[in-house]
């Protein structure tokens, strides 16, 4: 027996290695088209942008191929036109601040409406939940620009809200709501609300209501139960929802452009400006990379929260 097996037996693990190598090759080949397209038309250009952020702006847009760190300096600092001293770029800083504060306000408002909505859906009888979820999801998949236009038409000086308030005699002249920070926050809350509802819904759906009963049984009132038991248990869903609203708000472009007008710029509009009237592509590239970095930090946080949540199950 021994000599027969020594003759016919392939070396240890050879068949496995062969199968694995074939499998890996197939998988790589299959992934290749998607990867090439994304590298060419999404990921690769981001790297080119890093190069551009270290060049000198051209006179009529585009760039001159001369190395310069000026764009990065100009993101937060500017030179005085008269005495050439460096000082804070107030215009940029106020736009950063507006982006940050409006994104936070949007997140808080989305939470205020999203939590009750998610709770409401999750406590419906199982057969009906899908319907309510569907109702939340449909607006989210509807055209973002169209939804922004819907808000614009609502809050315009000649819009439905002002007409209604005038008709009821609550106001004497139309409220100026368009082109304000309020309009931007209102619009962003409206368009990103579903992103808050869905993860909180998932968290409430998983909530073990016997724990709520146990808290009630141990003399906790409804609200104490909510604060001490429910909220801590659905916290991962709330954090996930908040980050999902915060990230697109920070990078928003369409909503502030339509509802904020030319005065109330956010980060995205500031970037656009550098490629339009500003004619400062390197600065635009540097600002874009800054925005991307801010979003990445939030995303990493999100991934850490969701993976911790998963490992807790």
């Amino acid at each position, binding site marked *: 027996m021994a000599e027969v097996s020594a003759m016919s037996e392939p070396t240890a693990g050879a068949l496995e290695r062969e199968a694995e190598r074939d499998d890996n090759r197939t998988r790589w080949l299959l992934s290749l088209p998607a990867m090439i397209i994304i590298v060419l038309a999404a990921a690769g250009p981001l790297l080119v942008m890093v190069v551009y952020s270290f060049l000198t702006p051209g006179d009529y847009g585009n760039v001159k191929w001369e190395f310069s760190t000026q764009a990065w300096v100009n993101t937060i600092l500017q030179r005085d036109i008269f005495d050439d001293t460096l000082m804070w770029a107030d215009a940029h800083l106020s736009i950063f601040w507006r982006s940050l504060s409006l994104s936070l306000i949007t997140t808080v408002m989305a939470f205020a409406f999203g939590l009750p909505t998610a709770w409401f859906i999750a406590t419906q009888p199982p057969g009906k939940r899908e319907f309510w979820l569907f109702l939340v999801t449909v607006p989210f998949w509807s055209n973002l620009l169209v939804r922004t236009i819907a808000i614009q038409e609502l809050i315009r000086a*000649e819009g439905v809200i002002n007409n209604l308030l005038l008709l009821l005699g609550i106001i004497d002249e139309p409220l100026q709501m368009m082109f304000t920070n309020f309009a931007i926050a209102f619009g962003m809350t409206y368009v990103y609300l579903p992103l808050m509802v869905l993860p909180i819904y998932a968290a409430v759906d998983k909530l073990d209501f016997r724990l709520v009963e146990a808290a009630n049984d141990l003399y906790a009132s409804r609200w104490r139960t909510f604060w001490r038991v429910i909220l801590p248990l659905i916290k991962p869903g709330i954090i996930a929802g908040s980050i999902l609203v915060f990230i697109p708000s920070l990078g928003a472009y369409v909503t502030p452009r339509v509802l904020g007008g030319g005065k109330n710029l956010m980060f995205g509009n500031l970037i*656009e400006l550098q490629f339009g009237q500003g004619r400062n592509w390197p600065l635009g590239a540097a600002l874009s990379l800054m925005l991307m970095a801010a*979003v990445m930090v939030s995303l990493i946080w999100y991934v850490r929260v969701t993976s911790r949540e998963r490992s807790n199950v």
Partner: protein
Amino acid sequence: MSEPIRQPRRGYSVRSLPGFAVVAVFTFFALYAPILILVAFSFNAGTSLAIWEGFSLRWYAQAAANEAVQEAAVRSLILAGVAASVATVAATMAALATTRTRRFPGRTMIYALINQPLMVPEIVTAVALLIVFAWIKVATGHTSMVYLISAHTAFCIPFAYLPIRARLETMDYTLETAAKDLYASPWKVFSRVTLPLMWPGIIAGYMLAFVISLDDVVITEFVKSAGQETLPTFMLGQLRRVVTPEINAISTIILAAGAILVSLFFWLSRGRR
């Protein structure tokens, strides 16, 4: 003399929190009211967007007769059709490669790359593409739709990939093993078993990609060459002027098309096996 036992008016439920239902119902109202008002005024006989002057289809007629709208609509559909098709094929292949497998070298990188367009704010991708494509346009003098198509295809891939991958992950791998056992070659296994079973996922992925491409405004705005308006960029341009219910009519058509596609998507991804 005994007190009558007082019944609570409603059964106590740990699932109800006071006020939550009211806010929720208001939220649903608030989600739909602006859209419904927008749709309603697309049928307004007058030019106002806030005062009802009777039912009319004049704005639809006007939009349909507007050559710029026609051209933009056709361009949007062609762009979405081509980008979604290419993206779905690429995403299907990638989903086959990255699901139902042990960890293989490079898997994490492939995942990260496929989902990369979702991770970066659209405006950032848009200006990055502007930079690169401007360079290519100057170097080659070529300004066809190919830039829009490749940009749209790239950001459609992760959306097409999601439902296809989800479908594959719920599929029973032993079915393919069984086909192999019954003398099917790798290609036959794919064409006779894997592909027919993953069809609903592929269609769902295609529709999602189509809707995403149709909706895009930011990347299109920065990548398009002169005269390459799509319906959303055309509308964005119109907003700078006096707005008439014609915009509402176009919006309503876009909403209807999107709603149909998304409903179909939901129906398909409910996972009939």
